[in-house]
Structures are given as structure tokens and as C-alpha cells.
């Protein structure tokens, strides 16, 4: 009979029982999962059951983790994105959140670039921890992303992005993400990238401050290969700050647009 053991198809004896499988494969396992449900009683396994045996506190190997995570990815998605590369310019509220989502979904290579350090004021919306204050953002984010998914490649570069260096930084990406803060920087990155790389799509964001209605944030195709997420108008300014919920909504619009582009779908 065939079953999936830790997401790999294996041959086992007919009528094999769960505890017997544990004895064979992982005697110290203390978390037994059949077809997505934790179980505590011994039972007879059936053809094509998916059995996962975990020892609490034990870090799975990268290969095991990839198998376990693949089970959570929609069929066909993981294969299409695991060899793709996404560039993220800026890892503040938008970029750190986008990078986290793309790491969880399993994009194979992320290039993250930012010159800045983690500051206390960042913690209201950015994916950093209070014990990371003072670290370069790209270093702190790389550590956090590795803890989520050690199986992907992360290129972390602490540098200010200019019209001159962006070809060197992002020349190899399949999709580019604009996740900077100042309007001038956003326009500079977008214009220069789209002009220099006539084949590569770019996903940018504009307008996500305050606590206006969630549904005012949209994803639009605004020019050739240029997708814009946000409400388009709500700037960060004194009295209207950037906060986790709405910045997170815009960031996940961007992350989903990237995923759709990698899968050959129109983001809009």
C-alpha cells in the first residue's frame, strides 16, 4: 500500500498501524498528524493517507521543511515560483511585509535593498522585533526570513538606491517591487527601472496612510508593465501616520500582484 510519510510517497505493508509506522520511522515523534488532523489513538492506516510525524522542538532539515511546506502550497504554485527571483527596493512597512509573504509562499530568491537601520518608531508596522533596534534593516529581515523558511535564497544589500546603481542591484529579477517611502524616491525607482528593463514588470504602491476604509486600496495597471497598489492619494503627513493594518493591506496587494505575475496572471 502507498501512503505519504512526511509528504513523500512510500510503500508500506497493508493494514499498517500508525504506532508501528512511528516505531519504524521516528520512534520519538510526539505529534502524529493524519490527513491534516492531529491524532493520539493508534489506528490502521489507509491507502494514500498523509502521515506527518514530528518531534516537538526538533528543527526539520531544509529538505524535510520544503516537503512539509509544499503540502501547504496550492498544487502547481510552488514549482512555478521556487526558481524565480523578486527584487524589493526598500524594506520598511511595505517591503518587510511583502518579503515575509513571498518567503512564506516560497519564492526562491529575494533581493532586498535598504540603507536604513531598525528604529523604535518602525515597530508600529514593520516586520522587526524590539531586540533588533539598531541593526541594519536588511540584516534583521534576512534573519527573520531565514527563521520562517530556510530554504529560500536571500540577497541582502545595505545601500541607498540610486538611478545609477539600480541596474547592478536588480538586473536579474523576474518581478520588481517598489516599496520605498518618499514620493520622489518611488518615482525615481519606478521610472528608471521601467526604462532600463523593458521586459520586466514592476509593482509599486502609493497611498496607504491613516485608517481610511480598507476597500479604497486597489491594484491597478497604470501603464505598460507598471502596476500600482494603494488608494493613490492618502499621503503620510503630520496627523495622518502610517499604521500596520492599512500598510499591510497595500503590501499584501503588492505581494499578491507579484505572485500573480510569476504565475502568468494579470494582477488587476
Amino acid at each position, binding site marked *: 500500500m502507498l501512503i505519504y510519510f512526511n509528504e513523500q510517497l512510500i510503500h508500506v505493508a497493508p493494514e499498517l498501524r500508525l504506532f508501528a509506522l512511528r516505531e519504524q520511522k521516528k520512534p520519538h515523534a510526539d505529534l502524529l498528524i493524519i490527513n491534516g488532523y492531529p491524532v493520539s489513538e493508534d489506528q490502521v492506516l489507509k491507502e494514500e493517507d498523509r502521515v506527518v510525524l514530528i518531534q516537538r522542538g526538533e528543527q526539520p532539515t531544509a529538505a524535510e521543511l520544503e516537503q512539509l511546506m509544499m503540502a501547504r502550497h496550492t498544487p502547481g504554485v510552488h514549482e512555478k515560483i521556487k526558481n524565480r527571483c523578486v527584487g524589493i527596493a526598500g524594506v520598511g512597512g*511595505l*517591503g518587510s511585509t511583502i518579503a515575509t509573504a513571498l518567503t512564506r509562499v516560497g519564492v526562491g530568491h529575494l533581493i532586498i535593498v535598504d540603507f536604513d537601520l531598525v528604529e523604535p518608531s518602525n515597530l508600529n508596522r514593520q516586520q522587526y522585533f524590539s531586540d533588533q533596534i539598531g541593526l541594519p534593516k536588511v540584516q534583521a529581515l534576512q534573519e527573520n526570513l531565514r527563521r520562517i523558511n530556510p530554504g529560500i535564497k536571500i540577497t541582502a544589500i545595505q545601500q541607498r538606491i540610486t538611478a545609477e546603481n539600480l541596474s547592478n542591484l536588480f538586473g536579474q529579477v523576474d518581478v520588481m517591487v517598489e516599496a520605498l517611502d518618499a514620493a520622489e524616491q518611488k*518615482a525615481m525607482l*519606478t*521610472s528608471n527601472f521601467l526604462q532600463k528593463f523593458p521586459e520586466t514588470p514592476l509593482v509599486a504602491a502609493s497611498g496607504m496612510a491613516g485608517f481610511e476604509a480598507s476597500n479604497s486600496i486597489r491594484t491597478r495597471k497604470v501603464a505598460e508593465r*507598471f502596476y500600482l497598489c494603494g488608494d*493613490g492619494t492618502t*499621503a503620510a503627513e503630520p496627523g495622518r501616520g502610517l499604521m500596520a493594518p492599512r500598510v499591510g493591506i497595500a503590501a499584501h496587494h503588492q505581494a499578491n500582484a507579484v505572485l500573480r505575475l510569476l504565475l502568468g496572471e494579470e494582477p488587476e
Partner: protein
Amino acid sequence: MRLKINGQLQNFAQELSISQLLEQLQLVPEQVVVELNREILTVDRHATTRLNDGDTLELIQFVGGG
């Protein structure tokens, strides 16, 4: 001169460069992405690029925050 800007036709009395058009529309050039007839034009080309009757433009204004 008639220009199609962000999907809308607009009339202009005289010939314009992109820099002059942005000034008339009260847009800050450094905050705007300009696409002219499906080609992106960076800021350094705004002053030297003349617009012609019938041109199609997308002007995308960024606001701060991220």
C-alpha cells in the same frame, strides 16, 4: 494641440515640452512617472521631449508613505 492624458482628451493652446505640461498641471516632476506613447521617460528627458498633437500620456503621481 490635443493630448490624451490618463484616458481623457485635453486641449492646449501652444506647443509644450513634458516639463511645461507638468508645470501647467501643477505636478511635481520628481514625484511623477511619465509614460509617453507607451514609453517611460525619466526626469532628465522631460525638458527636451516635445509633445505632439495626438500624443497619449499616462501621468502617475506618487504620494509618500511605505
